[in-house]
């Protein structure tokens, strides 16, 4: 599977990659985007199977990216890895079609719990 990690922090993208490896998902093809706009373009160009997106990013934020993808008819599996977690954000994410909501700081165990059913 191809997994896109979208976060404006390069360090956080590295941590997400490392945590995916620690959770046993390192064999997948991992690609990166530095903001929501870049993530939108990469999803359209490279058709990843799954997107792990930060929420608060420049250019286009994570929820805007998800909504733009759905508006364009793209139904890629999409979820959030973010430091922010409020009930209204979770509602917005779910309403837009997000599959999961992981809060920073996160653990490999949390990744395993969320991604095992999705990645198998």
């Amino acid at each position, binding site marked *: 599977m191809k997994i896109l990690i979208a976060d404006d922090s390069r360090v956080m993208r590295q*941590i997400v990659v490392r945590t995916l490896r620690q959770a046993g998902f390192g064999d997948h093809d991992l690609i990166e985007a530095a903001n929501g706009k870049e993530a939108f373009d990469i999803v359209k160009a490279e058709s990843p199977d799954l997107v792990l997106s930060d929420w*608060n990013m420049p250019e286009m934020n994570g929820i805007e990216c998800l909504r733009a993808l759905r508006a364009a008819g793209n139904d890629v599996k999409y979820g959030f890895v973010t430091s922010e977690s409020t009930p209204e954000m979770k509602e917005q994410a779910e309403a837009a079609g997000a599959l999961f909501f992981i809060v920073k700081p996160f653990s490999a165990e949390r990744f395993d719990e969320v991604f095992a059913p999705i990645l198998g």
Partner: protein
Amino acid sequence: MSVEVEVNENDLTEMVDQVWESYLDPEGLNPLMQTYDENQPSDVHSSVSITGSWTGHIVYASSTLAARRAAAAFLAVEPDEVSEEDLSDVLGELANIVGGNVKAMLPPGAFLSLPQVVLAPEATARYPNAQRISGVYGIWDGEPVSISMWHSSTADNNSTKEGAE
């Protein structure tokens, strides 16, 4: 309208402990030892602003060496391999993580800014109409680190002028 914040020092300490446990000290060997000294020195700092149901700032400050060690821990490299870009990135992410967790405890309608990083002491910062309301101040592996919350008074309330010279 801004409301009274319900995030206290114990909440902040819990958030900071989670960051240490997850990223900076997963082995539990070098916890942040609290000094309760809000005037401890710093070389660098980062902040996020919160607006809406509560207005203020979350500020992460530390020595350069502590920031370098934090970046090294995040990246799983040696401290001397950390670039200035990495250091800034990690400082911003630390403020972002704590700020995001603070926001989660605030009433609905709070908005978090992107982080701002300043490679200069926290003492150089000025937050207009804001005063420090709580913080976690400590020593991490011999180096100062602090995380503080600053509450901004609303525009129609001029009673708080601290930090607005």
